[in-house]
Each structure stands twice: as C-alpha cells, then as structure tokens.
C-alpha cells in the first residue's frame, strides 16, 4: 500500500450552502479512496467572480490570504469548486507575473506571500495524483450503460496557461475519469459553453437562455445525465432545469451529478452518502434503470 495522499481542502462557500451534496460526496469519496482531506481552518471566500469583476486587488488579496492559510497544512490544495479553483490559480498566475501587484497584495495582507502551494481541482487529483488505473481498480459497481455528458463550463480550463488542467479547447479529463469507472460518455457540442452563472442572481433571463442551450445539446447528444465539477454550473443546470423546461416547453429530465457523486456511486457508496436526495432533478429513476441503486 502506497503512502496515503494528503491535501488541504478548500471547499468554498457554495459547498457549505447550496452545494452541500458536493461537499458530502467529496469527503465520502476521498475517505473511501483513502485520500486525506484536511479542511483549511477559517478559510475565506475567494471573492469569486464579483470580486475580480470590479476589484482585482481585492480578489487577489482574498485568494492570497486563503493560500497563506492553506500553507499551514501539509499537502497540495484540493479545490472542489471550479470558480474557486479558477480564482486561486489566477491569483497565483497574476501574482507570479506582476511584481507591482505582488507588492500591493503583500501590503494588503501585511504579510509575505506564500504562493507555492499547488492548487488542484478534484479532477486532477483523481486522474493524475490518484491515477486512473487505481481508480478503475477501486470500482465495485461499474457505471455500465450510463451515458454521461461531461460539462466543463468556463472555469475549469480557461484561459490558456492559467488552470493548466487540460487542453484549453478540447479537454478530456472528465471523460477519462468517468470512463475509468465504467460509464459511457457522449460527444456533444456545448461542453464548454457558458451557463451564465455570473447572472444567476441579477439576470436570470440570460441564464435561462444560455443554460437552455447547454441542456438542449446534452439532450440531443443522447446523454442520460450531465456531470459537472462546479457548483455554479450545477446550480443552473439542476436547480433551474424545471424552470427552463417551462419557458421553452421541453422535457429534459437530465439529472445533474457532481463528479464525486458518480465516482462515489461506482466505488460502492450509498446514495445517502452522496447527497443524492439533495438533487432537484430526481436521479433515482435513471439510476434504477441502470441498476446502479
């Protein structure tokens, strides 16, 4: 047995609120895979989109503060939320490039910067650190027959050279992970189109248009469900799915899983440990049909 993997864990605000099932399933899955997650004590909000939208310095400072907090714990920083992941990575990138901004942030934090921590999204940990072969070996209940549309959204891969998670225009990391646990993936057109998360509060009309297009594409590609790695995307695809169906008078019925939920299912975790009941679009019929419950 190899030495267990250790990470400091940055859940982010959503996972402590609307995306509780993502937090739950992450913790359960990693426990099952014998990966150590230690939540960063007293982490702050990363500032998310609103902060960088209007105040980059604040955004950078918040991220730097969180990285400083994470530095107390051994191991790389594991991030579940794609938005938090993007912000932390961006902060590292920008502060690495600009001496001026680095000085400003140091002054804001009144402390030297500690940016060395390796920020990793869960996908990266599963696919690279843990490894696809080990993952496949850990499977108890392969997701055979489940056709998954992997949705990357904006922030997992973009922009070039910042998250460096995978190819910026044609990533495959989600597909690799979910195929490793026995599911089938569908090729589809809107894997990386924006869902409009930034406007979920202020301009829901925009969200309905953009998310509707994503759902259309997944449905047209013949997917049974959508898999995401971002609570904001999830919020739009899952929570607003009914509303969108109403606006456009269509039926999607596409359950939207977090990647940890599906992988967790494959390693044999029960739906209670995966927070399946918190999903707005009920996944039970689908999972029953595929003999996964």
């Amino acid at each position, binding site marked *: 047995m190899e030495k267990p993997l250790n990470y400091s864990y940055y859940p982010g605000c959503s996972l402590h*609120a609307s995306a509780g099932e993502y937090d739950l399933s992450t913790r359960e899955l990693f426990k099952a895979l014998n990966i150590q997650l230690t939540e960063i004590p007293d982490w*702050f909000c990363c500032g998310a989109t609103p902060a960088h939208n*209007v105040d980059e*310095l604040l955004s950078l400072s918040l991220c730097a503060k969180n990285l400083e907090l994470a530095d107390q714990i051994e191991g790389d920083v594991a991030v579940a939320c794609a938005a938090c992941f993007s912000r932390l990575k961006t902060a590292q990138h920008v502060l690495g490039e600009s001496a001026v901004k680095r000085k400003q942030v140091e002054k*804001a*934090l009144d402390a030297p910067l500690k940016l060395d921590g390796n920020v990793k999204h869960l996908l990266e940990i599963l696919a690279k650190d843990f490894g696809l072969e080990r993952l496949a070996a850990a499977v108890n209940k392969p997701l055979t027959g489940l056709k998954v549309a992997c949705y990357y959204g904006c922030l997992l891969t973009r*922009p070039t050279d910042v998250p460096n998670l995978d190819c910026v225009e044609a990533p495959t990391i989600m597909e690799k992970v979910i195929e490793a646990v026995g599911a089938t993936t569908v090729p589809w057109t809107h894997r990386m189109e924006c869902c409009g998360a930034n406007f979920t509060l202020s301009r829901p009309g925009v969200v309905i248009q953009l998310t509707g297009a994503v759902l259309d594409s997944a449905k047209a590609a013949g997917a049974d469900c959508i898999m995401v790695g971002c609570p904001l995307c999830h919020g739009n695809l899952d929570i607003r799915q009914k509303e969108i169906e109403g606006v456009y008078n269509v039926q999607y019925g596409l359950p939207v899983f977090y990647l940890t939920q599906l992988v967790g299912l494959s390693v044999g975790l029960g739906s209670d440990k995966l927070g399946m009941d918190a999903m707005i679009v009920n996944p039970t019929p689908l999972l029953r049909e595929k003999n996964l419950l």
Partner: protein
Amino acid sequence: MKKKKMIISQETMDVDFVRKVEALSGTSVRRCFQCGKCSAGCPMATFMEHPPNRVVRLLQLGQWQRILAGRSIWYCASCETCSTRCPNKVHLASIMDALRKLSWDAEGASKESYVQLANKLFLQNIRTYGRQYEMRLAAVFNVKSGQFLKDLMLGPKLLAKGKLKMFHSKNKNMSEIEKIFSRIEAMRKNGEAL
C-alpha cells in the same frame, strides 16, 4: 452617444485611462487588430450594444465614456472565451474587469444596476461575514432590486433540499478580512494602488 461623431485629437483620446486599463488588466490594448474573434465567440455578445471587439476599439481611441455609458461591460459573463481564443493574446476578460473597476471609480457610470447591485452585495457579504451566504445574498438582492417575488418558486424547494441554510456561523478570524479591506482602501487613498 453611440452614434455621435467622434472628434479625435490628443485631448479627446484619454491615454491615461487606457494606461490605467492596461495596468489593471496587464494586457496591451493596442495589440488588438480588430479581427473580431472575441465577438464571434462571446456568449453574451447578443446582449451587448458594443460587442467585445468594439469595446477594445473604443478603448484604443481613448473613448472610455462611450464604453462606460453602455451596459456591455456589465453583461460580460467572465467566461474567458475571448481571452482564450484571441489570436493576439489580448486578455480581454481582464480588460473587462479593469473597465468595470474603473466604471465604479468614474462618475456617471453605467445605467446597468442589477449586476452592479449583485456585485456590491456580494462584496459586502464577504466583508461582513468572510464567506458568502447565498440565502442572505438572494434575499437582500430581491429586496434592494425591488423584485420581491423573483425566484420565489425556487426558495422552498431549495430549503427543503437543504440548499439554503438559514443559519450560519461567522469566521473566527473576521478581523483579518476587515483589515484586508481597509488596507486596500488606505492604499487607494494614498495612491499606492489603482
């Protein structure tokens, strides 16, 4: 404003503003050669009166008033598609960030209020609580924007699913966050940061 004739001279081209944008965004504005790829891929272009390429073009000519008067910058989804695909490495998403920042600094900013309100509340929440509390954010937004019934249908369902938490605990080191905010304010006052 949109169609008004542009009188171009060294006086009317605000080079200082452009420099600020370049400093904040860390990207060159002059580099853009107006190929239009940003506008071609922008998911929000149809909602904007100045498509992304034109925002950069106006910026090149130092015509920031025209940009800030419009809603375009507030309709940017920050999806980073433009930055990713720009053939000239113009980081347009960062330029948009910078423009929004400068819009808040400038007088007579955009009419667009909902997005700005959401942003303001979000930042206030962070300053007050250190983290984001969605329920509170949504509720206050609806009150302040006068859309009391917005997303009314979603509320109970989310509560039932445990997605909106009524209660939350404050961070133990809240003083830290307030310090960061106030230090940044002080730096700006002293002209140490934009």
